[in-house]
Every structure is written in C-alpha cells, then in structure tokens.
C-alpha cells in the first residue's frame, strides 16, 4: 500500500511535469493562441448602420454590408481580419497591423454608387449591374474600365441606342464625374470612366469600391481604437511579467501556509493554468489584456478551494482524527461551501457575458471557464494527491496540515 502510493504519486507528478514542460518549452501553448489587437497593434472600429430613404436596415442589408466590407478588407491584404455583426445594427471590424489605420477605415466605410443617367436625370444603369471594374491608364489618362453583366449590358445597350448622339452623364456617389456624348450603340457592356482621377491608385481604389458594390446602408463610425504595434509589444512584455510574478507569489504563499499540501496544490494550480489556456485556445478565444488579468485573477481565486479544503482538514486533525479520516471528512465538508460560493461568482460572470461586449465578454468567458476548471483541479486532482501523500505515510501529513 505504502510503496504503491509513493510510486503512484511519483508517476503522477512526473507525467504532469513532463506535460507541463512540453506545453511550455517544447511546444509553447502561448504560440497557438489568438491575440487581441491591444496586444498585436491594429485598429478596431464599430460601425452603426443607419437607414436612408429607400434603404432600410434589416438582416439582409446587414449581411450584404458585411459581405462588402469583407471583400474590401481582403483587398487591403490584412491577415486574419475579423468582421462581425454586433446587435441588430452594428458591425465591428478588427484589422491587425494596418499601416495607415484611419485611411483604411475611411476606405472601408465608403460607398461607391455609380449611376448613369439620362439627360433628363432618370437613372438608366447602376453599379449594381457591373461584373468588373479595373483601374487602368488609357491615352495618358487614369481611367476605370467598366464591364457590365448581361442585365447591365442590355440596359446599357438600350440607353446608348435611345440617347445616341446625346450626353449620358455618369454620377459617382451623386456627384457628376463626366458627361460623355454617345458616339455609337455599345452592345457588349464595355465602358470607360475617365476624368477626375489624379493618380492610378485613386482610379484603382474607385474600381475596387465599384467592384465590391455599393453598401446597402450608410455606415457611421461609432468608435475607433487604434493601437500601434509598439504599444502592443510593450503590453505583452508587461502582462507576461505581471503574470509570472503574480503566479509565483501565489505559489509561494500556498507553500508557506500549507507546506507539502501547498506544494501539491501548486502543481494542481499549474495544471489548472494549462487547462485554462488550452480551453481558451479550444474555443478560439482572443486573448486581450483584460483577458490576461482575468486569468491571473482566476488563479488567485482557484487556490481558494484548496485553502477552504486544507483549513477544513486542519480543523479535523486538530479535533483528533487520523490523517486519512481528516482528509476525507475535510474534503466532504468543504465541497458544499465551495460549490455555493462559486455558483454566485458564476452567476455574475454569466450576466457579464451576456450583457457585455468585446473586452468585457472576453473577461467574463475567462472567468466562467476558470471557475469550472478550478473545481476540477482544486477538488479532484488535489484530493488524489493528498490521499496518496497520506497513504504513503510520507511527510507526516499531520504536522503539515496542523502547522
């Protein structure tokens, strides 16, 4: 019994230490996590969709707007952009590592509404019927080559037939760009937009906007946050240092108060840390500064379960029970208090999760996962450790707990 317990204890610790070493040194788990913009640098913006006459804000319009924003972001060449709808009328856009954030933002929210009108001002063809738009140079001028789809081609053919030898003004976002005279009927849906482009880049941008289509709703910028990569890097360094020191202090305090039992609680705490980070990785959570604060805070709270249990075991031993009996009774009595107390924290966290947005949600999620995991490690794992220690007759548990 005694030797087997020692063997089991050593094996358990060895496996956990090996796993910890693998996930922290050989294949650091931190490398697989997705970090927030506050740690990487970048821009995050919230747009509010506002209805305009004839363009109500509904689920369809929002889906279309997100699709268009995604198209434009992809053209910016940003890695891993996040574009999502928040609530019924808001869209957030997260872009990492953008060189000129405000300009990018401006470009994203811009609409490019192309209209070809009759001389009397009736809309004949719109940008919605384009199949492609390309910025190019023609006759020393910067132009956008337009190709209409079949429906657009039909309309354009009809227009050029009807208004042959007349002017067909072209409007971009309601502004007159040019008013070319139709020389001949154009049956193939090819047109050229010239005039007003100072650079090729400008022509290309307009082409891109035209190609992505006009936004179905007006997007108003509600909030913008830009963080430079330098600041992000500083935050990573500061958070890492704070985390390491906080965890070390917690671990030392536990050993100081509960000696060997504290050491095993620390091992369980280490397992907890890896499980928590692993769980955050599994649910594709984004790690932000408040998220890291949540992780550190939850470690402080995770040891609470062990503190409650050990205090209980100590009481039972003082009352004269044998180590093994004191451990069983101590754990059993402590569990109810631990469950009830964690339940209230869980309630607060759940409410935060559903009401909060962005940062607050991330923090609440960390807290929720942390509470559940800490119950597993601090109760199940530590109990196994302490039982084995007691069975091994090792380290005079009595002295350890009574202190």
């Amino acid at each position, binding site marked *: 019994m005694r030797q087997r317990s020692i063997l089991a204890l050593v094996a358990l610790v060895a496996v956990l230490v090996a796993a910890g070493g693998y996930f922290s040194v050989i294949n650091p788990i931190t490398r697989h996590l997705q970090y927030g913009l506050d740690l990487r640098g970048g821009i995050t913006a919230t747009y509010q969709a506002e209805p305009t006459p004839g363009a109500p804000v509904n689920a369809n319009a929002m889906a279309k707007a997100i699709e268009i924003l995604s198209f434009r972001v992809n053209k910016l060449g940003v890695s891993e952009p996040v574009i999502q709808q928040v609530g019924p009328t808001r869209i957030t856009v997260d872009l990492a590592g953008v060189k000129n954030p405000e300009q990018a933002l401006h470009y994203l929210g811009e609409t490019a509404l192309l209209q070809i009108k009759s001389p009397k001002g009736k809309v004949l063809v719109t940008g919605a019927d384009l199949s492609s738009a390309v910025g190019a140079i023609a006759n020393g001028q910067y132009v956008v080559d337009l190709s209409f789809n079949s429906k657009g081609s039909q309309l354009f053919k009809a227009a050029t037939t009807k208004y042959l030898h007349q002017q067909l003004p072209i409007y971009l976002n309601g502004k007159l760009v040019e008013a070319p005279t139709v020389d001949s009927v154009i049956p193939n849906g090819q047109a050229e937009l010239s005039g007003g482009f100072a650079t090729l880049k400008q022509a290309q941008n307009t082409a891109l906007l035209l190609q992505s289509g006009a936004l179905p709703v007006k997007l108003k910028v509600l909030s913008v946050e830009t963080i430079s990569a330098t600041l992000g890097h500083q935050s990573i360094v500061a958070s890492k240092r*704070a985390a390491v*020191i906080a965890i070390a202090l917690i671990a030392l305090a536990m050993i100081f108060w509960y000696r060997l039992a504290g050491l095993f609680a620390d091992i369980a705490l280490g397992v907890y840390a890896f499980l928590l980070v692993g769980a955050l990785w599994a649910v594709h959570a984004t790690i932000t500064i408040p998220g890291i604060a949540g992780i*550190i805070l939850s470690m402080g709270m995770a040891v609470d379960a062990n503190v409650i249990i050990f205090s209980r075991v100590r009481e039972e031993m003082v009352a004269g029970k044998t180590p093994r009996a004191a451990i069983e009774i101590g754990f059993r009595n402590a569990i109810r208090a631990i469950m009830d107390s964690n339940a209230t924290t869980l309630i607060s966290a759940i409410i935060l999760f559903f009401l909060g947005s962005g940062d607050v949600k991330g923090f609440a999620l960390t807290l929720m996962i942390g509470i559940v995991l800490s119950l597993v490690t601090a109760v199940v794992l530590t109990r196994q450790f302490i039982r084995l220690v007691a069975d091994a007759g090792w380290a005079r548990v009595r002295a350890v707990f009574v202190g």
Partner: protein
Amino acid sequence: MTFHLDFVKHWKLWFALAAALCLVGLFGIFVRGLNYGIDFTGGTQLQLRFTRAVSTTAIDAVLDRQHLSQSTVVYIGSGHREVQITTPTISEGQRDTLLAKMHSVGPYQEISTNRVSSIIGKQTERTALLAVLIATAAIIVYIAIRFEMRFALAGIIALLLDVIMTVGIIALIHIVLTTYFIMAVLTIFGYSMNDRIIVFDRIRENLHKQRKNEPLEDVVNKSLNQVLMRSINTSSTVMLALAALLVLGGASIRDFSLTMLVGVFLGTFTSLFIASPVWMLWRKRDDARRRASVRPVRAD
C-alpha cells in the same frame, strides 16, 4: 492555529465604522463626483510619443486654435515625451487636422487612438447598471433558495456597502472610469458574495449542531473564527495577485487592479464584521417576535 475572537460583541462599533466609510464613499460619489472617461462620455483619446520633451502649453495652444480648449493633456511615463490628449467628440476630419497641426509642436509617433461616440458611452453606463441589477436579483434568489432569505438580504446589504465604499474611494482618488472599471465592480460583486457564502455556509452548518441554550452569538462567533484563517489566506492570495498586476501590469490594467484591490479588502471586512451580525440581529428579532406571538396562545 485557532482563534477565539469575539466578532459580534462590538457590532455597533463595526456598523459605525462601515457607516462612516459609507458616508465617505457617498461624499466621493456625489460631492467630488465620478471621473467618467470617454468610454462613458464619448470623445477622442490620442496617445502621442514625441521624439523630444514637449511642454503641455505648446500642445494646449494647438488645441486652442482648433477650438478644443476643453481637452485635457497629461504626460505618460517619465521624460515628458509621451502625452495623452483627451478631446470631446470630434469628427475624423477634425482629428486629422489636429494631428497635422500637432507637428508644429515637434515630430511624433502616434501610439494609439481611441474614439468613442457618445451614443456608445450612454449605452455602456446603462448596460453596467442593468448588469448590476440583474446580478443582484439573481444572487438574492440563489441564496434564498440555497440558504434562507435573511442570509440573502444580509449578504446584499453588505454587498451594497462594498460597492458604495469602493466606488466612493475610486471617485475620491479621481481615477478615470473605463469599461475596465465596470468589470472590476462586477468581479467584486461576485468575489465578495463568494466570501460571504463561505461564512454563511459555516453558520448554517453550526446551526444544525447548535446545543440547547447555546446563544446565537456563540454560534456566529464560532463560525467566524473557524473561517477566519481561510478568509485571511484567500484574500491575501488574491490581493498578492492584484498587487503584482498593479505594479507591473501596465497603464491599462493598473486602475482595474486598484479598484479590485480596494474591493477585495472591503469585501473581506464586510463579510466578517457586517454581514454576519446583520443576519444575527435579524434572526434574533424574528425569534423574539415569534416567542412574543406564541406566549399569549399558551396563556390561554
């Protein structure tokens, strides 16, 4: 180590102390006022790092010329090179102009910008209040089911004191409120309730073992002494973690940690010295009433 402290004997002293702290808190909240950040009020916050030391007067002058004289400018870190400028809500164009004009002060690098419209700000505040209300209701229901109503209400009274005192102290120090502040207050909510339940759980357990003629005071005192070691150990562990965050965590996390630190400390105090005596006095009053109403019946 076992304790034999008499917690409930001096309950009047503890209540007076809590009341005094509460008054200080209310003074902080209503007289000095909360220092709402742009997360609540809307506005733009720019962080710029100049290549050499700059004076705030030069920056103020630029702001004045842009008709943004209500803005505030503070240095970040040492060396008077990094500044944080907070302006009222301005448009994208105004911001671009401001940044262009700022070059007259000196060459700089833009570290971060945070622009929040006042619509979002109002919502943040409303959401926070809503979260607090719902959390309070949910916690009352939970404790009333698992324990009894008196525990729930005693817990909530202590919790209200915690929140008033913590928010009041934050108002007194004049820390700028951000969304982190809301997170901190709600976490304190959960944490100090957690703390109280440990105490209540022990009282509940000892009530079952109560001997005949053992006064309620003794049961409560015994329970508080039994959980004292755990309270000290856990609070100090959490406070150690928070202290590390406070000192090393960088600017954005500092205020969060400080708020939490104050809240955890006060939460531990009210759990031991306020919540349990409140419950005890309440229970004794109810018991006395029951006896009073029972006696005439027996006399018949």
